[in-house]
């Protein structure tokens, strides 16, 4: 009995530790005071300002577009990588695996810096192309991770059966492989999207002048005086993220069940 109370308290403390900062941030977006000061006075003033703030909106749009492009490219690359990798020997495969996961262990700051130096070295102009390329480099491992897990648990016999029934390799991919990995593609793409959307370091180094993303805009607004408008925009981001997560959960949920059900039946 006592033990139960203690462990519940313990969980509660961890939850508080994780979520109180975010809750405070969200709450202050509804506070009238410019300096987050008490007493709390409810107002939608900062959201109204957000609606009028074209700079922030532009940055948000850039972020979403950049993350979308990154997510889509990551999924496509990861899918090709994973499917191609299956035909390698185990030894080559494990080497490829370690190399492809490396960007995860290199700090983004260093990654951004090295990309910047590379661009300088070849005397290219900074452009959105390089920003996207940089984002793909750091986000790709996340798509790979999710897809790899799915493909490894996939039964090769299904594709062989499809071939034995007369299907060409392309048909087999379209009708057998793709439906099996589609949920993982969505999940992997979403993960890469979030990594890119959230990224500050790479964007900061590579962004051409006059363009900004949401993380960069938020950072600079702190430098030039912070308003609860940032709280408001953060709340919107959190809301949209949760919504995306829920949608992905729904898509994955039903198709995951089919997959799981199959392997249970074996």
């Amino acid at each position, binding site marked *: 009995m006592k033990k139960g109370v203690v462990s519940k308290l313990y969980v509660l403390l961890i939850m508080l530790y994780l979520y109180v900062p975010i809750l405070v941030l969200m709450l202050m977006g509804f506070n009238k005071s410019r300096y987050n000061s008490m007493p709390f006075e409810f107002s939608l003033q900062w959201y109204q300002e957000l609606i009028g703030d074209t700079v922030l909106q532009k940055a948000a749009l850039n972020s979403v577009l950049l993350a979308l492009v990154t997510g889509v490219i990551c999924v496509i690359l990861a899918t090709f990588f994973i499917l191609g990798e299956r035909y390698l020997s185990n030894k080559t495969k494990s080497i490829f695996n370690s190399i492809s996961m490396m960007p995860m262990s290199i700090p983004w700051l260093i990654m951004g810096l090295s990309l910047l130096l590379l661009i300088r070295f070849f005397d290219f102009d900074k452009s959105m192309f390089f920003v996207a390329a940089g984002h793909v480099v750091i986000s790709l491992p996340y798509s790979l991770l999710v897809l790899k897990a799915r493909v490894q648990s996939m*039964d090769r*016999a*299904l594709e*062989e*059966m*499809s*071939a*034995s*029934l*007369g*299907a*060409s*390799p392309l*048909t087999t991919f379209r*009708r*057998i492989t793709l*439906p*099996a990995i589609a949920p993982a593609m969505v999940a992997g793409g979403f993960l890469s999207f979030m990594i890119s959307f959230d990224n500050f370091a790479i964007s900061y180094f590579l962004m051409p002048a006059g363009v900004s993303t949401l993380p960069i805009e938020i950072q600079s607004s702190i430098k030039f005086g912070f308003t609860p408008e940032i709280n408001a925009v953060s709340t919107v981001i959190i809301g949209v993220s949760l919504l995306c997560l829920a949608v992905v959960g729904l898509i994955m949920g039903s*198709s995951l069940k*089919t*997959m799981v*059900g*199959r392997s*249970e*039946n*074996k």
Partner: protein
Amino acid sequence: MSKVVLKGITKKYGNNTVVNSIDLTAENGKLISILGPSGCGKTTTLRMIAGFEKPDGGEIFFDDKEVGAIPVNKRNIGMVFQSYALFPHMTVEQNVAYGLEQRKTPPSEIKERVAEALKMVHMDEYAKRKPKQLSGGQQQRVALARALVIKPDVLLLDECLSALDKKLRVEMQVELRRILEQTGVTTFFVTHDQEEAMTLSDKIVVMNAGKIEQAGTPFEIYEKPATRFTAGFLGKANFFEGKALSFENNKVQLETENGNITIPAQNAVVGQNMLYVVRPEKIRFVSEGENGIKGTVEHVTYSGNISTCTVVCSGKEIICEVQNAVSGQRPQKGQNVTLDWDSAGSIEIIGGVN
């Protein structure tokens, strides 16, 4: 509908030779069973015929055409895997229709043939279900329907009836036999069930450690096993091995490790090591006083139609089967008995003794 010929087929995984220079001919429209212990290379052989694995040596012919360069999807084979491999995201109906769709069969005909195939395996009621909603035996039947509906030239069945209960299995065997006779498709059939192999096959191939031990009709394999392995693997067997000391009146006296024993035999070379196999059902109990092998009943197992007795004759265990007829009396444990059999019941295995 193709004659299939394997010539010197070899498959290696690393240093491990899994299939070792196999020669095998499947005549057009015949059913060939492949029997052998787990891991002897049965599945690997089927996979090479299908084209999933490339042989490291040898050639495969479908009707005198070498198929090495023909990919799986152009070989017109039907296959049932050990693991069924039904497509999980498609219904039973869609699974069966898949092969016909690849052949650009008109939709109306697809519908007809799918329904027919499902009816054949008694799965017509389950057409709209997903594979995960089916039992193992039901999945197996769908897999069979999917392989048959495309009217393949060569049918490859890897333990395709193993998950069915006895009654359903016999039913499916009869059905399979009927379909095969009707369509004349050349079939390779891997099974662990000896009875199934005996009743279904035109030819049985016994494999061991990647090699063919013996190929022949079920009768030949059972009644005239060529090797000790075949004799021991298919059915129960009593082995008598030793130097022939004398041979007269169709009786051979053998010097075995359990001492000398005299058994009926049709042939023997005095002074040479001989190996005979005697099937349990060939042995009969004779009344005391008659000539025969004396022993004591050690153990009796009742299994309905027959009883299996272990009789110890001067240190050697001999297994024999008796019919549980109404009039016949069953041997009792501890009883002293005399065993005898026709000399033709002792099958000489030439080359069995090294």
